[in-house]
Every structure is written in C-alpha cells, then in structure tokens.
C-alpha cells in the first residue's frame, strides 16, 4: 500500500485546563431539574400544619440521626419498630391502584399512591411502624373516610412511615 493512501494520523487533542472540564460539568448539572412541586405536594398532609403531629422527638445521640429522631413523637417511641418496606409489601394485600376503600379494623391501607408504593416496595429500604392516636378528622388527610359526627374522637392507629415523615400505609387498631 502506498504511503499516500494511509490516513493522516490525527494529532492528540490539546490538553485543557481542569477548570474547563469542571465548568462543563457545572453547565451539565445546571440542566437537571428537581422533582416537581406537585410531586412533593401530593405527599404533604392537608392542612400543612398536620405535619406537626409527627414533629419533635427524643433527643438523638449523634448529629447524623438527630434530624431523623426529631420526626418521631416521643410518646410513640415505645411503639416504634423498623421494618423493611419490602417486608411490609408482602404482608399487605396487593395494591391494585384503585382508591383506598374504607377497611375494617386491622387492615393496612396504602396511602402513598400506587406508583410510589410499588417503587418503594421494589427498592426495599427501611420504614417505621408508629403507634399513634389521631383525631378521626385526620383520616381525611390520608384520603380515608370518617364519621364527621365523631371528628374529634381519637382513634388508635399504626402508621407505616419513612424517616422523612411520609406516611406509606395506615391501619386503625381500634
């Protein structure tokens, strides 16, 4: 083969400053958008002040857990248990995606939303079982029906919650 038929060797690209590469990463990062407000809004109770029901807890032993500990009611500590979301999914009936219906005492109702529940179930991870008392009207925040005539009457419930305070499932104990 004649040498003039050989392709010209490509010169090595000129080196660039690391700063240029970092700026390119920064520009790429700037194109990433966070989850929409609607996604977070769907997880928040109505009214927003209902979040206070799970605020502040026993003091934590380290800074790393302090933010998580403050989400749990102190009086619920005795009834606190950590389970894996996947294990809970096995115990609960398969969530068909339909709106949660009123269930009898003892049955967990998934309130996180079908897509959210299925994703968390497949990913695993930890959640907390919290024993609590709620005024019946609070059930409305989770999309569950209640007797308006007994709105202020407390009911004992178990909440399956993530560390962020997000309630995944709920059942009435009495």
């Amino acid at each position, binding site marked *: 083969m004649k040498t003039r038929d050989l392709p010209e060797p490509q010169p090595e690209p000129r080196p660039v*400053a*690391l*700063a240029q590469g970092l700026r390119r990463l920064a520009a790429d990062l700037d194109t990433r958008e966070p989850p929409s407000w609607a996604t977070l*809004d769907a997880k*928040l109770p109505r009214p927003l002040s209902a979040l206070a029901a799970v605020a502040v807890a026993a003091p934590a032993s380290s800074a790393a857990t302090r933010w998580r500990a403050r*989400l749990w009611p102190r009086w619920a500590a005795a009834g606190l248990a950590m389970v894996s979301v996947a294990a809970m999914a096995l115990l609960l009936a398969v969530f068909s995606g339909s709106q949660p219906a009123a269930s009898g005492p003892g049955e967990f109702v998934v309130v996180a939303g079908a897509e959210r529940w299925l994703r968390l179930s497949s990913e695993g991870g930890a959640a907390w079982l919290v024993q609590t008392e709620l005024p019946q009207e609070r059930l409305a925040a989770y999309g569950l029906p209640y007797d308006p005539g007994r709105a202020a009457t407390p009911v004992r419930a178990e909440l399956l919650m993530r560390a962020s305070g997000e309630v995944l499932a709920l059942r009435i104990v009495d």
Partner: protein
Amino acid sequence: MSSFAPWQVPARDADLATLVARIARGERAALEQLYRREAGAVYRYALALSGNEAWAADATQDAFLAFAQHPAAFDAQRGSLGAYLAGAARHTLLALWRQARGELVLQDADTDADADDDAQAADSLYEACPEQLLVRAQSTRELWRALNALPFIYREPVVLVDLQERSYLDAARIAGIELNTLRTRLHRARLRLAHMLGAGVTP
C-alpha cells in the same frame, strides 16, 4: 437592639424571613414558593454527590419535608437556608448509602495511604489551581465518571465549590467540616481529578 427568633433572618433578607414565617404558620403556598426557589440547587447537589436520580429526588423532598415540619430549627445566624436544606438532603443521602452498602461512607480523616499518594502528586502540582492543571480533553460522561470515582470526602467539596460555586463558608457548613479542612480536601480532590484525567502543569 432587637433579637431574632431562631427562624428569622437578618433584615437584609426580609423576603426570606417572611417566607419562613409563613411556612411556620402552615402556609402551603409559602412552602411552594420556597421549593421553587431552592429545590433546584438542593437536587443538583444531591445528584452530583450520589449520581443517583431517585436518591437525589428523595433527599430533596425529605429536606423540604423536614424543614416544613420544624422551621424553627433553621438558624439564619449559622448559614443560608439553601445551605441548611442541602445539609438536610446530605443526611438522607448518607442514610441511603449506609442502607445500601451497610458501611460508613465518610472518612473523617485521610489515611496514611492517602497522604502518601497526595504527597507524591503534590511535589509537582502543589498549589496548582484548576486553571493551571491540564488534563486530556474528555467527554462530559468521562468527566462525570472521574468525579464519581473520587471518594465521597473529596467529591463533595468539588461539587459544592467547583460545580455549584457555593461560598467556602456555606460549603463547609453543608459538609459539616472546618473551613481549613474543606480547603485541604478541595485541593486534594482537584489533584486527584487531574491525576485521573492525565495531568500536567502549565509553565
């Protein structure tokens, strides 16, 4: 001289102070306003740090949920609200890492091996800044891969300072370390990146 409640910010940031106060009163619209204002930076920090979109999304939303539950925990005297929210997201990320890997991610101090590696690199690249460190031209994907290959304690300063252009003070607060520690880790991170990407120093 008036004193501020912990969640109040200096008068120069009255808009933010008003917003925080409204959130403390349970105003949903105020939380939405804050979310639209700050969620982008928090999410991008979490995403660049973890390389995991789902984790970054969870960490971002957890940060705002935690703030909405207890806005009084924010002290404007200790740093910006954006830094506070990023710090909260960081806690979620670390918890997710521990869960996934069953081990601690953070190393509070460099090991002797790290120190030796850095000493060799530092001989020729000491005090070199990113403008002086030369690397082979890389695709964006290759650059991300190199950044993700850094240990957490070195990746974080690069994300906070070089990618997000946060102040050194805010970056140190988010990372929960002293200012000098941040500077040291940032310097070492840049050296490691330059080493990985094929480095030299401009004359």
